């Protein structure tokens, strides 16, 4: 007998299971594989539920306690006003997970497909969905897979260097709160290059839940520069999962800017499947009010001679709470691994809190790895130095905060993207300074 000692399900857990069951009772969508994936995910969620503090990876973000209730799945809604441009890009807008009119004039080598259309046509790329996920149970990912059906597939043909940046704008719209489960698959074939922007936005007054999963596959020699701007509405819950698998001699740089949502969690799974590759996972979180933002990384060096760089900067005002967890895993075959991880927090208030947990798990003997974490206030001597040159206190503080976060931004290779990120930082600081 299977002794299941899980406590009674919360209202949110029960609603999610009911919603999953309703979805799964409908006529099957797509291949047997997809349906099996959904059924397995439903079963895993029914067994494990939402994570609590007792689950190590969620120790600082008690999702089970935080998620009081769950609204119904968000349906079709009017397309909200388009967000202002980030950088000049080819934009794909998803409202409540559903792609709106896809751009037609695509550069050679780039294919965009709505996930629903791909499922209807049993597209071969679907085989890649959920084919290289984490070994352990991940509630956010399981829920997303259980509801699998909406989203987008982006494919870059071998050797294609896509000149424009591609922006995927994921928006919530609705008169009532709702849930979104969006799945994005990005496949960049051998030798191809892509600049990708993901944006998440929604109205401040709606307590919606946005569960977004993006899976990226980089073929040998591919390059992806990826910027993710999470600017969800103030009352939203954002559960993001990003799983990237890198081939041989690839270059992948991710920058995550976290500004929004009442509660957010981003889990990044980065896996080196081919040697001599580079992965940069960096970001800045600017948090005020009572926001809670959790960034958790798993960087898996499975093969030799790869390099990873993780750098996160967290600025915390008021009663905000930041969480950084990062684990670099170096497997026995991953000799000559070079991994560096750093998380730094700047606390602007006595009531703000930062939880840093960087970890290394090393099973190879010829590696260079390091990690570190700091948390502190603005330096008084530096502040006085700037003020003694005529900068008013607020302005001096802004300059120092900007410089602090800027140390992560400067790694963004694309100048336009760098400027766009800096502009967001400045806007946040200006808003805070009043």
């Amino acid at each position, binding site marked *: 007998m299977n002794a299941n000692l899980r406590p009674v399900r919360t209202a949110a857990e029960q609603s999610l299971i009911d919603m999953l069951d309703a979805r799964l009772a409908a006529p099957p969508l797509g291949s047997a594989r997809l349906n099996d994936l959904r059924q397995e995910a439903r079963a895993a969620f029914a067994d494990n539920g939402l994570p609590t503090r007792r689950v190590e990876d969620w120790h600082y973000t008690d999702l089970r306690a935080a998620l009081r209730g769950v609204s119904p799945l968000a349906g079709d809604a009017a397309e909200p006003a388009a967000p202002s441009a980030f950088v000049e890009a080819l934009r794909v807008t998803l409202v409540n997970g559903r792609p709106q009119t896809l751009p037609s004039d695509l550069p050679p080598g780039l294919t965009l497909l709505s996930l629903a259309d791909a499922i209807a046509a049993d597209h071969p790329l679907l085989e890649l969905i959920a084919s290289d996920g984490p070994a352990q149970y991940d509630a956010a990912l399981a829920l997303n897979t259980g509801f699998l059906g909406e989203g987008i597939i982006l494919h870059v043909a071998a050797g294609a260097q896509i000149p424009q940046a591609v922006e995927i704008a994921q928006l919530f719209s609705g008169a009532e709160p709702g849930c979104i489960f969006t799945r994005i698959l990005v496949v960049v074939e051998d030798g191809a290059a892509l600049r990708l922007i993901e944006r998440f936005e929604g109205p401040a007054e709606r307590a919606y839940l946005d569960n977004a999963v993006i899976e990226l596959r980089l073929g040998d020699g591919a390059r992806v520069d990826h910027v993710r701007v999470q600017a969800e509405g103030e009352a939203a819950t954002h559960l993001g999962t990003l799983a990237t698998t890198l081939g041989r001699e690839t270059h992948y740089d991710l920058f995550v800017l976290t500004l929004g949502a009442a509660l957010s969690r981003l889990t990044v799974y980065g896996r080196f499947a081919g040697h001599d590759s580079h992965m940069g996972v960096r970001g800045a979180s600017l948090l005020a009010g009572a926001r809670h933002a959790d960034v958790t990384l798993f960087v898996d060096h499975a093969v030799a001679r790869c390099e990873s760089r993780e750098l996160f900067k967290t600025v915390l005002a008021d009663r905000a709470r930041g969480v950084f967890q990062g684990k670099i895993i170096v497997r026995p075959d991953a000799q000559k691994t070079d991994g560096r991880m750093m998380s730094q927090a700047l606390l602007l208030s006595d009531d703000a809190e930062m939880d840093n947990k960087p970890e290394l798990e090393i099973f190879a003997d010829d590696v260079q790895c390091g990690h570190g974490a700091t948390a502190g206030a603005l330096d*008084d*001597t*530096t502040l*006085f*130095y*700037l*003020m*003694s*040159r*005529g*900068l*008013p*206190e607020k*302005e*001096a503080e802004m*300059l*120092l905060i*900007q*410089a*602090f976060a*800027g*140390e992560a931004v400067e790694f963004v290779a694309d100048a336009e993207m760098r400027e766009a990120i800096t502009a967001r930082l400045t806007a946040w600081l200006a808003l805070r300074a009043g």
Partner: protein
Amino acid sequence: MLEIKNLHARIGDKEIIKGLDLTIPAGEVHAIMGPNGSGKSTLSYVLSGKPGYEVTQGSVTFLGEDLLALSADQRAAAGIFLAFQYPVEVPGVANMTFLRSALNAQRRTRGEEEISTPDFLRLVKEKAPLLGISQEMLRRGVNVGFSGGEKKRNEILQMALLEPKLCVLDEADSGLDIDALKVVADGVNGLRAADRAFLVITHYQRLLDYIVPDVVHVFAAGRIVRTGGKELALELEETGYAAYSQDAA
């Protein structure tokens, strides 16, 4: 220009300045010499408004205004400049950005218009080479990776751009070799003007060979114990501070 009367100041419970009187008229260079630990640097911080230094008695009037009522940034805009003994590194803030932000912040505080980009660039292009500050140093983070001498020269560049009325130099020669000292002194001497005064704080007489003062004060145990002309500096070089250090307390 500057009038200090019966100044008492402390950090925490420790009184450091104990009844200081000092008047510096416009156009003059005053040197303050004294043993280590006599409170010379404290005076520079009290004048520039560093938090944590509490004035318990006395007054400081600068150009007719109560200096002590102003915050550090307001004092800068009013014309006080402190060249730090140990200039601070500010990673992530480009030197150029810093110089321009400081200049414009002062102008805004004074109700003046901000400087235009071309005017600012012209100004920097004119002043920086005189102090041996390269384009590369202007692009780098403020003082980041600068040698001791480069940091001091960068202080003088800031002074030259901000055009203060009263320049306070705290141990401007510490850590400098003779060539670097000459560059710094030339920079300072180039700024001497009828409407500008200098307060040069130093332990050694050497600096005063290059920045020749009008008046020399001996500072010991929190106040001025003797005042004279530039020859006083030479006398101190021979006799040392022993005569002033303990009996003055």
